[in-house]
């Protein structure tokens, strides 16, 4: 160890002691303020109006385990560059306000929904669409979901913003889960797997029962396909009988990444800190509690 290395190590250790930064952390190249430093400034006693700490952080509330999957859009993005504590809080406020006006039910990818949207061009100023939920994306006010249906020989998909004020109501006709997170492969499957009748009656589950898992395996239609579905290891797809050529087989071998399952660093980067998840979900629990007590009073 030469003198320069020693000096660098000492500086890093000093910095870690002052700001609680892990040793491996390399600050961004951009001329920006880092997250922990900004939060320090917001709460410091030297500022004009220091921000008070939330009561929610100190309170001891038990968060149910399934809340992480029930309210996925409340969880902030995993990339630390897109994160900010205050922005997330303000965004959540808007979402809770909207949820008081419209009831957003519990649903997953694979369940059947009916959606009412305000439409200026329709004579009744309102349109209703029934379909299978294929995907559920993004977080915050940006969340959207896609419904798919097959009407008169036409496969139709419509994307809806979940917190758009044009949405009048969301109704769950059949609560279900599928084996995959995305069902885009239904585009190239036979139409009977995505046809849903508009006058379908809602199927109610008995209270307290778990959400049923649909383990159906869908066959693929004839080629050409939109994407190479058979290569992508979907659990809800039947294995196709397509014979790969020599070059395609070599390409498949090269593109395979078997180490990704065991890549701990990748998992760390793609997921959020458990403490952050708890602080967010505590707020969700409190807000949903208030709502439920209100509805009880009305009864």
């Amino acid at each position, binding site marked *: 160890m030469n003198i320069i290395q020693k000096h660098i190590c000492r500086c890093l250790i000093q910095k870690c002691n002052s700001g609680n930064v892990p040793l491996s952390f390399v600050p961004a190249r951009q001329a920006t303020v880092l997250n922990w430093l900004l939060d320090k400034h917001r709460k410091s006693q030297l500022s004009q109006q220091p921000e008070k700490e939330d009561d929610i952080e100190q309170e001891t509330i038990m968060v149910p385990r399934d809340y992480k999957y029930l309210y996925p859009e409340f969880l902030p993005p995993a990339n630390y560059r897109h994160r900010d504590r205050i922005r997330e809080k303000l965004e959540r406020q808007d979402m809770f306000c909207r949820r008081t006006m419209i009831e957003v039910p519990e649903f997953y990818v694979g369940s059947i929904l009916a959606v009412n*949207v305000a*439409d200026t061009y329709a004579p009744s100023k309102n*349109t209703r669409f029934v379909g299978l939920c294929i995907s559920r994306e993004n977080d915050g006010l940006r969340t959207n979901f896609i419904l798919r249906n097959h009407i*008169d020989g*036409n496969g*139709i998909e*419509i*994307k*809806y913003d979940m917190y*758009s004020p044009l949405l009048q109501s969301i109704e769950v006709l059949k609560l279900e889960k599928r084996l995959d997170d995305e069902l885009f492969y239904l585009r190239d499957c036979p139409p009977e797997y995505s046809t849903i009748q508009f006058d379908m009656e809602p199927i109610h589950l008995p209270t307290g029962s778990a959400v049923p898992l649909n383990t159906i395996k869908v066959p693929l239609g004839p080629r050409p396909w939109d994407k190479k579905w058979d290569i992508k290891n979907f659990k809800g797809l039947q294995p196709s009988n397509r014979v790969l050529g020599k070059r395609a087989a070599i390409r498949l071998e090269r593109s395979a990444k078997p180490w990704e399952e065991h890549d701990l660093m990748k998992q760390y980067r793609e997921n959020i800190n458990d403490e952050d998840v708890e602080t967010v979900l505590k707020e969700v629990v409190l807000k949903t509690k208030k709502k439920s007590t209100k509805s009880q009073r009305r009864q």
Partner: protein
Amino acid sequence: MTGSDHIFPGKLIAYTSSLDLNLLQKTLNQTCNHFTTICSKRLNIREEEQCFLHNKLFSTSQCLMELRLRSRVRVIDNSPIGKAAATAGKPGKIMHVYNVAAVGRIGDKVMINIMGQKKKGYIVGCRQKQKTNVPRFDTNNVVLVEDSGTPTGTRIRHPLPSCLRQKRYGEKHSGEFTKILSIATKFV
């Protein structure tokens, strides 16, 4: 004539070095014959290939899913020419988009080559990615229109997107669009 070793120039040079002129002449004749046979075979294959590609729905702009020139469309009204094209397995191709960008979107006018005829039509439903609350179809749908502006079919048994009922489409194409909307049965 299966031996391909006649073609290599290295061999030719080897022959010339030995200065056997008779042999050289022979080999040259052989190579000429070989080329002619290959060319004739190749031509035959080409014709087959063209048909093959045509039936395979070959597209160069598939990742964008844009409606450009020579992209195939499906006629959804009950006009006889549309039905004939569907049964023959020869979908219509776009010849021209009446548009500055030359990319067809929902509500754009289009000239189509269908069953060897030149027809005009309107794009009604796209496979391309759409905005929120606007439907995305699995096929590129078109409704045919005569030169006078009246639709060739009498009924449309397929759903149309609701955003087509906007005023701007009616104003842009001077009432041709309202005639199409009047024969439609279902909106999504």
